[in-house]
């Protein structure tokens, strides 16, 4: 369906990534946000708290990130599109209820504007070191969806994808910005509301007496009933059967957890979103995301001037990882190069998919700034040898 025009500030704006992210959420139909202030993400909720009273949304500043995450999961059970926003330390606190959202199959969006870590780290400076936490941060087996914008414009655009994927797969979706994109101001074009397609909450049509909250009938995604519609359903963070009742057994665990993982893992190709440039016939392929993708393009240009055949895959969705494409390329190229603002995270995933056929070379920046394009160029030249 087309989005609710009330949330869409159509026009050309000069916005930073945080504001653009907030506008993206409102344009995508988000109407409940709970958050706790943390640099460098706070401007997202500042923007939202400024506009929500005029568009039928409710914002509440909770007492901490545990509460913020719990509140958006609760709110989502009324059918409202809900979101919270944080950075590293708060993201760590949210992990408990991200797991609850995964287990209860609750659509919601969590924005992490990444800064340098670990711990308090570099509150006002860029990092990309929460990428593996995004994938594995909460305990137990589950799969997650995570997006990475490279610009304020994309922070706006990809928010619609984030909310839509949350609905389609009934899962928490992580929006992994970085401080550089968050605090970078650029032109952002917000389209007309009739150009923005959103996925509404798909409510069950079953009769209340026949409804089972986790019955999948051969599909991967159960039908949703919202609180207050007379379904009297039960949902729990415990391992549960199709009625949503706790069942402490190996069999129930196997059925439930396998489905939680597979509903995303088996649809990875469907979910994947990346942009390729010059990959066909390339000797070296970069795998990039977030702000680093932009800086890497300078390194690529410099390497191409030296005659190296170099292509790039820029991940707009990092999780699930585009495993199939990386495996295909591994047989055709000399090496992957992975620049990232951490000491080696997504490079591990590239290496796993390359499966020993070709090396995956890390170009690390430890955080607090972005790469020197020359360092990326040098890594490409080295890899092409």
């Amino acid at each position, binding site marked *: 369906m087309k989005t609710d025009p009330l949330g869409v500030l159509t026009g050309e704006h000069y916005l930073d990534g945080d504001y653009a992210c907030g506008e993206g959420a409102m344009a995508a139909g988000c109407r409940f946000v709970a958050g706790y202030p943390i640099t*460098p993400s706070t401007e997202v909720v500042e923007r939202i708290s400024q506009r929500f009273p005029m568009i039928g949304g409710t914002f509440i500043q909770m007492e901490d990130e545990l509460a913020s995450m719990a509140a958006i999961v609760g709110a989502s059970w009324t059918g409202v599109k809900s979101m919270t926003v944080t950075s590293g330390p708060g993201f760590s606190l949210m992990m408990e209820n991200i797991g609850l959202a995964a287990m209860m199959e609750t659509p919601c969006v969590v924005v992490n504007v990444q800064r340098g870590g670990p711990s308090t780290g570099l509150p006002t400076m860029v990092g990309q070191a929460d990428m593996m936490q995004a994938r594995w941060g909460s305990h137990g087996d589950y799969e997650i969806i995570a997006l990475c914008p490279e610009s304020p414009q994309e922070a706006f655009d990809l928010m619609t994808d984030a909310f839509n994927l949350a609905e389609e797969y009934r899962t928490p979706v992580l929006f992994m910005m970085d401080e550089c994109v968050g605090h970078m*101001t*650029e032109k952002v074009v917000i389209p007309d509301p009739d150009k923005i397609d959103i996925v509404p909450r798909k409510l069950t049509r079953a009769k209340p007496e026949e409804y089972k909250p986790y019955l999948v009938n051969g599909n991967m995604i159960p039908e949703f009933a919202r609180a207050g519609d007379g379904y009297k359903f039960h949902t729990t963070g415990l391992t549960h059967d199709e009625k949503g009742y706790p069942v402490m057994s190996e069999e129930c665990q196997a059925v439930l957890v396998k489905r939680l993982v597979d509903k995303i893992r088996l649809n990875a190709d469907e979910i994947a979103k990346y942009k390729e440039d010059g990959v066909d016939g390339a000797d070296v392929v970069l795998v990039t995301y977030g702000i680093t993708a932009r800086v890497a393009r300078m390194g690529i240009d410099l390497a191409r001037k030296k005659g190296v055949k170099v292509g790039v895959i820029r991940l707009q969705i990092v999780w699930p990882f585009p495993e199939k494409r990386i495996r295909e390329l591994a047989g055709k190229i000399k090496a992957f190069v992975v620049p990232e603002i951490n000491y080696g995270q997504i490079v591990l995933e590239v290496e796993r998919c390359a499966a020993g056929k070709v090396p995956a070379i890390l170009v690390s920046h430890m955080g607090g700034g972005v790469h020197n394009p020359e360092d990326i160029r040098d890594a490409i030249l080295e890899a092409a040898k």
Partner: protein
Amino acid sequence: MVLSGHIIGHACAINAGMHATMIQSFGPEARGSACSTTLVVSDTEVLYPYIQRPDIFVVMSSEGYNQYRDELKDDGILIYEKDLVHPKLKKGQASYGITSTRIAESLGRKIVQNIVMLGFFGSVTKIAPREALREAVLSSVPAGTEELNLKAFDAGCEYFDKEFGDAAKGKSGKKVKAGT
């Protein structure tokens, strides 16, 4: 300073069809002490958002000048508050001073000195058409202050016209640093 950077970026990106990427200094600096903002303006997509050596350095306090003066390119342009900053230029660097604080005071509100400076900056650099900057001022300042801010902008432009005429020319692909 941050507002000025925002207005210039807005003028270039929205009103003049260029690419303009602004980064503001963040942290304790944004809370009352010295602060700065950097802006990269280009005809093509800006890939690297930070600035090591700006082409243009706009400065409104001696503290800001001392902190950032060494970053200005050897052939860069310094634009400064004439009463507050006493520049020591390298050979090859050009400079343009304006008494922006006094001009703002004569308009009745010292707070608009940054907009006076903005008019002056636009005139020195020709980074965007004067009208594009003027429109950006209009869309960026708080409601009810438009008239005062436009007066301030025009005063900055007039000061340039009077003192420097057509002496300065701007180029595209500029990296601007502004500090107070």
